[in-house]
């Protein structure tokens, strides 16, 4: 399920992008299917995609799709300019996508910097227009806002350290948790604005 918030941004879950066809605008041909969605928590945005060949009997492709080659991410397809958009691993921006990562973040625990466990990541929320990573979808922890086991949306800062099995977020994010994707974009903006105000006040 995707949603448009009040600010008209199309927000997608990363797992919704996984499996979408990669379509060339030049000839309308589907060149591959998205396999993994790779994002950079330090930069707060998507890095690119790994891909599967089209057809159930076929396996993963060697080439990857860097975000710089993506023209648009839509509800039903990832659009590229032409069939040459996919790059071999190890070349240019593709190296960043194919370098691997700290692993699949789905299932990882989320902890605040105050030491409170918020829940387990079930998805990552992405702004389709910019490729910015806005937050995590969580399965809420037992005593979190009385939403035990419910799906919650947690905004994250635009830069974030991720390593190992736990994802760290500021404790100030907790009041901005939403239980619906509509309006989540606005909550992320408010949270980031408050973070920026906090930073400027400390200076």
């Amino acid at each position, binding site marked *: 399920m995707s949603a448009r918030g009040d600010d008209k941004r199309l927000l997608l879950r*990363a*797992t919704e992008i*996984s*499996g979408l066809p990669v379509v060339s605008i030049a000839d309308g041909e589907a060149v591959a*299917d*998205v*396999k*993994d*969605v*790779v*994002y*950079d*928590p*330090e930069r707060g945005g998507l*890095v690119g995609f*790994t891909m*599967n060949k089209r057809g*159930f*009997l076929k*396996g*993963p492709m060697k080439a990857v799709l860097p975000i710089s080659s993506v023209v648009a991410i839509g509800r039903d397809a990832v659009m590229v300019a032409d069939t040459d958009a996919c790059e071999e691993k190890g070349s240019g921006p593709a190296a*960043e*996508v194919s*370098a*691997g*990562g*700290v*692993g*699949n*973040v*789905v299932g990882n625990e989320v902890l605040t910097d105050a030491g409170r466990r918020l829940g387990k990541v079930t*998805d*990552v929320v992405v702004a389709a227009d910019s490729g910015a990573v806005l937050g995590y979808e969580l399965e809420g922890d037992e005593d979190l806002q009385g939403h035990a086991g419910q799906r919650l949306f947690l905004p994250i800062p635009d830069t974030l*350290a*991720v*390593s190992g099995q736990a994802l760290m977020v500021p404790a100030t994010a907790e009041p901005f948790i939403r239980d619906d994707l509509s309006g989540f974009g606005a909550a992320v903006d408010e949270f980031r604005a408050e973070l920026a105000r906090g930073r400027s006040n400390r200076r």
Partner: protein
Amino acid sequence: MDVVTVLLLVLGLLVVTLAAFVAVQRRRRAGGVIAAKPRRLRRGG
């Protein structure tokens, strides 16, 4: 063993092989959400 038993055995084996293939293929094609390595670990990491 009569012919019917042999045929049933072969058919059963085919079904099991097909199910195993589909399971492996699903796993191969399954996607995830990957956090890229921190920059300090990317070189020589």
